[in-house]
């Protein structure tokens, strides 16, 4: 197996992680088991190594103007310490990536990007910098990241820091937080549909942080959690995964992310194409699907209705919290209505399914 190792690679082996290659990285798909780790995050807490994520800094007088031109969401009005999610599009409305944008100051932003897209995103950003006074620095290799997720995350993290992390609002962050004696940045964000934190630190500090958090969470039932449950957790919450629900061929509007596309903001890359898509109506939409027959839908399987193929599964798997087999699928807009009965073709057999509302899971 070939791939880049995060600074926690030895810890993953120590904790019994089953290593797989993902987006060019060697990471644990699971430790004790996907279903057990999934349940821990929903009911207690789980700790993920997400050091593979990319961190690109944008600084300079035109940092905001540059980003406003680059992404579909509106970043005006953000305050220091605030985070915003946004797709980033090509001219034709297809998606380059989806990002988190952290505002450090009027002239300083951190853009967190998907691991598999770091090089592509950086090149796209550089290509679109002309005319803006801004400097871009890719610090992905100098930044490690942990995600502590689940309802007991605050209780666990509070044991390791004097900062009132409980008071960090959702989609906000505080910098220069000492956690277990190490300098970190802590944000109230995640990719699981649960409460939780993402903790950014120096690569040389991450093993100490991992061990300290695991120790602090012992009585809460904290488990190390792998990529497998990261995917099933985000899937139940219907958070898109780039390469599945979003891609160069799937615009944020088709993905159902219209609330992050501010067509009324001043010009941005892809705006004209997205306006046209909205006016003409989308031919395909990402919809939620419950497989009611016996079988599991998987990415790439055809969706059928009226004897023909009307779409494709983008993500499919059991939804452990629901105890059902669910899917996200890109389907012909004519069939994209909740309650519509369809079929998923599983190994040549049509299995009954129905279009249902998203998300499949919402924390109470």
């Amino acid at each position, binding site marked *: 197996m070939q791939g880049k190792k995060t600074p926690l690679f030895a810890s993953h082996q120590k904790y019994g992680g089953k290593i797989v290659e993902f987006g060019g990285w060697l990471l644990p798909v699971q430790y004790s088991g*996907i*279903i057990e780790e999934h349940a821990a995050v929903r009911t207690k807490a789980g700790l993920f190594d997400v050091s593979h994520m990319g961190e690109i800094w944008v600084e300079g007088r035109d940092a905001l103007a540059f980003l406003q031109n680059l992404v579909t969401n509106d970043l005006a009005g953000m305050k220091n310490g605030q985070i915003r999610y946004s797709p980033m599009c090509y001219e034709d409305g297809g998606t380059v990536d989806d990002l988190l944008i952290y505002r450090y100051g009027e002239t300083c932003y951190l853009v967190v990007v998907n691991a598999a897209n770091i090089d592509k995103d950086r090149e796209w950003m550089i290509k679109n910098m002309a005319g803006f006074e801004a400097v871009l620095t890719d610090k992905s290799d100098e930044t490690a990241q942990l995600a502590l997720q689940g309802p007991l995350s605050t209780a666990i993290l509070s044991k390791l820091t004097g900062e009132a992390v409980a008071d960090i609002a959702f989609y906000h962050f505080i910098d220069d937080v000492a956690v277990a004696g190490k300098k970190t940045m802590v944000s109230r964000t995640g990719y699981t549909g649960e409460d939780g934190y993402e903790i950014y630190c120096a690569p040389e500090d991450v093993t100490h942080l991992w061990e300290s958090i695991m120790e602090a969470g012992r009585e809460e039932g904290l488990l190390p959690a792998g990529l*497998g449950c990261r995917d099933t957790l985000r899937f139940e919450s219907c958070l898109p995964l780039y390469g599945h629900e979003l891609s160069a061929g799937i615009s944020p509007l088709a993905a159902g992310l219209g609330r992050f596309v501010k067509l009324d903001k001043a010009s941005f890359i892809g705006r004209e194409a997205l306006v046209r898509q909205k006016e003409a109506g989308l031919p395909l939409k990402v919809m939620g699907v419950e497989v009611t027959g016996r*079988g*599991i839908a*998987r990415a790439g399987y055809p969706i059928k209705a009226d004897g023909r193929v009307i779409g494709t599964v983008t993500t499919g*798997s059991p939804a452990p919290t629901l105890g059902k087999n669910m899917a996200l699928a890109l389907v012909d807009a004519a069939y994209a209505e909740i309650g519509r009965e369809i079929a998923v073709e599983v*190994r040549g057999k049509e299995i009954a399914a129905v279009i249902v509302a998203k998300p499949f899971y919402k924390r109470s």
Partner: protein
Amino acid sequence: MKIPAELLYSKDHEWVKVEDGRAVVGITDFAQDQLGDVVFVEVPEAGAELGVGDGLTTIESVKAVSDVYSPLGGKIAQVNEELGDAPQLINEDPYGKGWIAVLEIADAAELKGLLTAEEYKKFLSEEA
């Protein structure tokens, strides 16, 4: 990793237990561990005739779909219906309650193509 001495093994990580001209077939402890939590087993159809390497069943874990190939040729005499509702038996007891099917062995000479426990153990260590 359990590798019972009395069984035969295929390089596709199936085990075979020979009893009175019949072969009980399942997947090995190594295979179930590699798959992770098994959530779906397509129970094979009794009566079907299979050749060596034909698809016997499909096992799905949370993340993966894996085909199980028949380690021997023959007719499926019996299938483990319990796996339909309790696919996790493959994880919990791969050599016992997690058996998949019983085949009527068509050609006993095919057994020679399988590995002994010792050979399978060596095969695993070379593969790793």
